[in-house]
């Protein structure tokens, strides 16, 4: 068993070029993902979790760009790869699942075309062989009559079915890693659980790594083995799911968990973290959470807390924890 992680992110920094200087959307984010491991990245909107996900494949929309850090994937440094080599990794070794299946599939191309092209972009095989693979993957995501489905257009599918297709496309080239950006957010609540279960099952059976980006703690704890909590562009806490969800260290994570409706007696007032996450132009100096933290002390306003081991297997960025 090789000890090297599948993906090793070190001090990743992603910035957006703005008229009045750069905004740092992802600030020195580091984490490792072992082969077949599942990591959940949680955080509020604008915390930088999606940008991190897109950053791994260098697909951050302009004016965003990777300003620093390293991305080691299967022994290769992604930030140093030429575009063509990176293209061969995209959709091949690392697949992505986007948030809204209504928007991700091209409306004017058949499902078959969109699947087959993904295979042919990476492998020199015949169209018939590629179609056979596509059929196999559609079966894997439990869509009936795959042969017929291949000839249909996205608008002939429901939202849940489309996300199944997107998952099937992610599986086409048997990738080592899937990055799923809010894969269930745009779906009906009733379908969300099905899709999650499908994704989880496939990751286990195909031994694929998964980075699940979501704002939904419940979703993450169902699927991921480890959780990274992001706040204002930084990881504030990362550790095994049971640890982070059961015994959170960082005040922000505690606040998040405390805000879950099920933690509050029926009819009681819901808890919330006071204030709002700062916009990227106004991240406070020192600890980014300092202006909302109930425990905030002098040192928090002055120095950025490093991400350090705190409780069992858990790293957190807080001055006040030991």
């Amino acid at each position, binding site marked *: 068993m090789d000890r090297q992680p599948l993906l090793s992110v070190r001090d990743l920094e992603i910035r957006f070029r703005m008229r009045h200087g750069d905004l740092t959307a992802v600030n020195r984010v580091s984490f490792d993902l072992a082969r077949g491991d599942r990591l959940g990245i949680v955080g509020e909107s604008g915390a930088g979790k999606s940008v991190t996900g897109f950053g791994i494949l260098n697909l951050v929309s302009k004016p965003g760009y990777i300003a620093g850090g390293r991305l080691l994937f299967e022994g290769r440094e992604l930030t140093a790869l030429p575009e063509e080599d990176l293209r061969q990794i*995209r959709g091949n070794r690392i697949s992505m699942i*986007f948030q*809204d299946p209504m928007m991700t599939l091209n409306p*004017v191309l058949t499902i078959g075309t969109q699947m087959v092209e993904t295979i042919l972009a990476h492998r020199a095989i015949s169209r018939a062989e590629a179609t056979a693979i596509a059929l196999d993957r559609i079966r894997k995501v439990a869509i009936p009559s795959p042969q017929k489905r291949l000839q249909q257009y996205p608008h*002939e599918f429901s939202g849940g079915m489309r996300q199944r297709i997107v998952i099937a496309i992610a599986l086409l080239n048997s990738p080592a890693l899937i990055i799923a950006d809010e894969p269930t957010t745009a779906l009906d609540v009733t379908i969300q659980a099905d899709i999650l279960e499908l994704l989880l099952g496939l990751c286990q059976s195909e031994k694929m790594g998964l980075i699940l980006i979501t704002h939904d703690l419940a979703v993450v704890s169902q699927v991921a083995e480890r959780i990274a909590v992001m706040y204002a562009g930084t990881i504030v806490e990362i550790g095994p799911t049971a640890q982070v969800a059961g015994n959170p260290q960082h005040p922000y994570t505690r606040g998040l968990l405390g805000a879950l409706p099920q933690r509050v007696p029926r009819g009681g007032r819901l808890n919330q973290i006071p204030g709002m996450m700062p916009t990227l132009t106004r991240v406070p100096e020192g600890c980014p959470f300092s202006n909302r933290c109930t425990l905030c002390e002098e040192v928090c306003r002055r120095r950025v807390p490093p991400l350090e081991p705190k409780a069992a297997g858990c790293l957190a960025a807080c001055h006040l924890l030991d």
Partner: protein
Amino acid sequence: MFAFFIRRVTQAVFVMLVISLIGFTIKQSVGDPLREITGISVSAAERDALREKLGLNDPFLLQWGRFLARALQGDLGNSFYFKRPALQVILGKAPATLELVFSTSLLVVLLSIPIGIYAAVRPRAWLARFFMGVSIVGVSIPVFLTAILLIYVFSVGLGWLPSFGRGELVTLFGGWQSGYFTSDGLKHLILPSIALSSIMLPLFIRLIRAEMKEVLETDYIKYARAKGLKPGRVLLVHGFKNTLLPVITVGGVQLGTLIAFTILTETVFQWQGMGAMFIEAVDRADTSLIVAYLVFVGALFVTVNTVVDLVYGLVNPMIRIAGRR
């Protein structure tokens, strides 16, 4: 698809009915058919008798019905001036116009697509800015001025290209006189085609650029890139195919307009097509020919638009579904 086809054709027929009604009304209120048939030596009583005999005193709708019935058989009346069936006169002139329109469309399609895509992909490149600048100028200058300018530079000044006429023609089967098969004929096509495209080309470059830019921002383009597709495929198959929908719609309307708008270009270049013929017919108050031209161009317009709609249906899968219902 079939239901969609039937529906579009029904609409086209309805539009043609309206056009024929308008054409017929013009004919009724402008010209007097008796003047066409009789000389000055015919007495008023004889005129009245003839009027009655020809059914010119019948109710308007009945006469329109007769006009329609004759039009369906290809009889759009006789030209006063040419003393020949108007349709024959028009068909004799049509090849000149259609060839001009065809080469102009070819020019527009071949240039606007690559330039439009390029300008969308690299909006900041100086070449893209240059194209955008030139296209503004092209749109702003009236066609006849562009035409005169072209003649001034390339015919009078440089003496490279002929300034008027169609040059050497070849008669094809069915009497179609074509300038496509001689180098002289092709040379004569160059300036008029450029002049005629000076409005359409910038319009299409800007349209394709705007649509393409919008498409490139969509999730499915980002997704196509995330699938690791080659950049060319992302751009042309995923990007441009979606850009095509609005472009086809506008293109259909513009193709009709192009046929109608050859009038100015044909006049400047003394191009013996339908446009020049129409201007002459207006000069001579040749009502029958004017009305016949209206109906003919109307029919052409409607046919082109219907075909474009059907093509649109082929490109856009969602239209086909609507038709299937």
